[in-house]
């Protein structure tokens, strides 16, 4: 349904335009700031800064989703492709991740960082062989991760192409979301756990059916509450992740009333404030605390536009 109203399930043309604008400005800022994502090259692989590696992987995730959804304008799409290639080059085309995985075989984060590259055809033979071997070990099924992280590893393994060895329903049942708790018990840590549970089960909205029906219903009931609570306190980083959750549902939720506030909070250069710290005037200093919310904004804008187009296209299923 295309309307100009404010129901969470409505497609609102003004809000969708704003979501697109927020996403494209975010991508533009990431393009401008991409040298900040560079790895320090004078240290051996095992000592690389995990935060810097994680940021490159998140950059690749945004690039992967923008490529997959194919709704970005030509300039934005080119920038996103450039960011994906840049991130892969920074990782020496997988060699950095390979050395990291070889040096810390019990760790799962090198493989997790590999996912978006592997999904976009950026493969490293040695890393493929090593992760295949490690994934076959008993050890890979007993990592003492929090439940939503276990789901992340299972999701990444599927994305790289390994056969599913985990009981996804059992893993899901152990997450906060899987327990369908009293909705007022959501706190920050569990909120980020919840968003990632949805991201991993649906591959960031690519497979909405990956989220079990009861959890779809639970989110339809309570996501509007959490969006309202974090909108009110202007916690943009989490709010944008919750907006992504809305786009990952079989019947997506769009929250049109929220997008004007997100758009107003975004800086003219595209930086998305996190809602907690004030961005310093110096762009390089601002990058440190605002790369994450800006990457999230790029993904949220893209998925909102894409799902809205799907729902607004005659003949497409809306259920």
């Amino acid at each position: 349904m295309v309307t100009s109203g404010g129901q969470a399930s409505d497609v609102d043309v003004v809000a969708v335009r704003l979501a697109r604008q927020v996403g494209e400005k975010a991508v533009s800022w990431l393009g401008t700031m991409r040298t900040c994502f560079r790895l320090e090259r004078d240290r051996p692989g095992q000592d690389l800064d995990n935060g810097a590696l994680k940021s490159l992987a998140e950059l690749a995730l945004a690039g992967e989703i923008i490529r997959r959804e194919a709704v970005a304008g030509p300039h934005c799409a080119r920038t996103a492709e450039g960011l994906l290639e840049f991130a892969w080059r920074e990782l020496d085309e997988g060699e950095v991740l390979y050395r990291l995985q070889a040096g810390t075989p019990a760790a799962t984060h090198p493989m997790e960082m590999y996912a978006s590259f592997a999904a976009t055809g950026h493969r490293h033979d040695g890393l493929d062989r090593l992760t295949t071997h490690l994934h076959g070990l008993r050890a890979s099924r007993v990592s003492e991760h929090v439940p939503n992280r276990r789901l992340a590893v299972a999701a990444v393994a599927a994305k790289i192409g390994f056969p599913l060895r985990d009981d996804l329903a059992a893993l899901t049942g152990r997450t906060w979301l899987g327990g369908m708790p009293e909705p007022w018990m959501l706190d920050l840590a569990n909120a980020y756990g919840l968003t990632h549970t949805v991201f991993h089960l649906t591959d960031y909205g690519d497979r909405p059916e990956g989220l079990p029906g009861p959890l779809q219903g639970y989110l339809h009931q309570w996501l509007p509450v959490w969006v309202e609570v974090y909108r009110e306190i202007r916690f943009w980083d989490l709010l944008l992740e919750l907006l992504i959750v809305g786009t990952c549902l079989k019947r997506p939720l769009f929250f049109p009333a929220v997008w004007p506030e997100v758009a107003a909070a975004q800086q003219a250069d595209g930086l998305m404030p996190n809602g907690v710290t004030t961005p310093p005037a110096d762009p390089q200093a601002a990058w440190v605390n605002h790369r994450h919310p800006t990457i999230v904004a790029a993904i949220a804008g893209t998925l909102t536009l894409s799902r809205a187009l799907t729902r607004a296209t005659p003949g497409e299923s809306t259920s």
Partner: protein
Amino acid sequence: MPITASSVPGTVEPAVQALASELLRALDDQEGHAGGDHLDRFVDAWDDRSRGLAAVRVLGADVLTPSALRGAPAGGADEAVVRAAVRAYPAPAGHSRGATLWNVRDAALARVLVAAGTDVTAWEGLASPRSPGWLPDGQWLPLAADLSRLACAAHPWADAALRERVAARRRDVARGLARALLRRDLLGAAGLARWLALDRAGDDEPMVEAALGQLEIVGTGDPRVLLQCGIAHRLMTRAPA
């Protein structure tokens, strides 16, 4: 007069808190408070009678609901106190949102009185009843905001049409309850839990009980919160009308 008094010194809030404590005792009937003239005694005991009457007006129908729920409706002296409070603090006229909420509050008060056999037609200051068309349609947030301020209208003698409209929006009321708890708005949460308790409908019952259980513990310092919780529990255990 605002429906929700702030706790600024010199306001009516201390009297409201004291009256809520009194009503909570009446609800439990620990000291034979139910029925009789406990409102009259409360107002007389307050050093400034007008402040006592203001507290009666702030709590609205809730000054009568505890004793009515125990089947011991207010006596003549208490009715006279309520009538004096209504006269001293008449509902605002007009069609503003605030005036509309007063219509609902006073309708809730009148219905408890009428159920006890009192004729309120000649009462000065009482707002005229209004059909439940005032309930916001569509969005859950304004609905929950209004209902949390109108918790005193959630009682067994409430207008059937109003109860039906609220029952049809239980999912939205529950959203309001969750939001209020997340914002640590205990009084708002207790009021919305009370609306859910009024006409229990299956699937959300465990949530209502869990919310009330939490509110009764963390709301220990606020008699108004405890009064809402106490009434909500009575509503849940009461046989359907």
